[in-house]
């Protein structure tokens, strides 16, 4: 068996990925419908379902205390969908792209509630835009909703613990969430597409092929998350206090 590896492959994968992109907007990294075989699709669904169930339970608990919770979750899901329709120029590669928005959802609503938010946004994207799909919904929810949300939340609080400001913590959370989503999606794709190739070589090929768009999108996601958190801290610190992103002392200052 011969496998095309080494510098030539890296160059070819990057060039082929870039050559497809300038024609239009580069989409955030969702796995397209039909790409993952049935067995793996079932595995990703099974892995995502407990988090969806926990997220819905958490949302019901919060909704029992505050009746505006469900409309809020629905509206945040709609915003995640809408920001994915906004073309923003991506530096270095001369194309447009858009962030995922799950980092913001995870910070504002908590990582568990962000899972159903991602599910709803992904379902709407699949139906209205043909981004992602039904068979890959489990894989996409796992990458974007579970890994993305929990990474964003964990990184935000880890950076805050080191004394960083809201903006810096928000930026790191958005950046880490996007890159974690991208790496998880690459791994899911590599497992799904694996044939004669080894998992690692295919994972590297996919990760490299999408790096020219996904690395700048991560920075865009970080900037957006920082922008949202900073804007909320200036205009509505009470909301950040309610979402426990600020403590009472910080809200006063």
């Amino acid at each position, binding site marked *: 068996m011969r496998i095309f590896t080494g510098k030539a492959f890296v160059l070819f*994968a990057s060039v082929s990925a870039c050559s497809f992109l300038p024609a239009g907007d580069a989409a955030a990294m969702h796995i397209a419908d039909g790409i993952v075989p049935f067995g793996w699709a079932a595995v990703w669904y099974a892995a995502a379902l407990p988090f969806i169930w926990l997220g819905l339970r958490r949302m019901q608990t919060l909704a029992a205390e505050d009746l505006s919770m*469900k409309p809020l979750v629905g509206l945040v899901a709609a915003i995640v*969908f809408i920001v994915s329709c906004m073309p923003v120029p991506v530096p270095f590669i001369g194309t447009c792209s858009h962030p995922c928005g799950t980092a913001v959802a995870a910070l504002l609503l908590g990582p568990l509630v962000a899972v159903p*938010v991602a599910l709803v946004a992904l379902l709407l994207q699949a139906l209205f835009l*043909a981004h992602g799909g039904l*068979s890959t919904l489990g894989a996409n929810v796992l990458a974007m909703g579970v890994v993305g949300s929990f990474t964003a939340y964990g990184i935000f609080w880890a950076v805050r613990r080191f004394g960083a400001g809201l903006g810096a913590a928000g930026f790191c959370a958005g950046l880490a969430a996007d890159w974690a989503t991208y790496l998880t999606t690459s791994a899911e794709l590599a497992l799904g597409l694996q044939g004669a190739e080894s998992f690692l070589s295919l994972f590297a090929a996919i990760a490299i092929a999408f790096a020219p768009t996904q690395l700048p999108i991560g920075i865009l996601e970080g900037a957006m998350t920082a*922008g949202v958190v900073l804007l909320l801290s200036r205009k509505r610190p009470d909301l950040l206090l309610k979402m426990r992103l600020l403590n009472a002392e910080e809200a006063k200052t």
Partner: protein
Amino acid sequence: MHQWTLKAQSDHFLSRIDTRVRLFCAVFAIVLAISQSGMIFPAVLFIVSSAAIFAIGIRVRQYFLRLAEPLIIGLTVIVIKSLAGNEALATWQVGTWQFTIFQDGMLAGCALALRIAASVSVLLLLAFSCSFTDLLTALSWYRVPRGLVEILLFAHRSLAALHEEASTMYHAQRNRLGYTSARHGFRSFGILAGTLILRAFDQSQATALAMMQRGYNGHLPVADCRRLCACDFCSAIFFLAGMGALWMMTSGI
């Protein structure tokens, strides 16, 4: 900005079949498509669903615009898969680098690309042929958790208004040079997303208040489904039997 709402003719041949049947058949067809490694079944499914999409009044250009991204992903998959395999088809020497295209890899890539095209076209047929509210009613009938259906409803209700608002803000930012450079673009996008989140919080409070005045107790009522008729059962049986037989023939069972 994307135009994400496309409607079929109001009275098409699929409108006589209940949405629950259409949803079940779509999921069944996607499962069959992703559980086969051959090319014939997905190719037939793609042709049949594309023909049905045109028959219900969707224009060719609109359909292929929606299909463009999955097709680009399919092409990328063919390129990546063609670079690994056992039977060399062609070899090019570019300087010191050697590029080899493998026949078996390319065929596997083509099968995957057809699977993507088939699954996406089935999903698009479902999305074009039924209203979102009908789809949610069907999901509710299939015992999808109520909380999920409710946030889908909230998200869908607010999509148009939020999209309009986001679109106005985005164009206003563009006209005031908000996206001339990456730095300006990131800042503008952060403000846009932050403002949308602020609106979402305010709107969720207002929506909850308005709904509480009309007796909302935390649960949205979902419309009841009509009784399935003989026509629904016949269509389902005809479709499932036809697809199942084709799948078995193309699988060599």
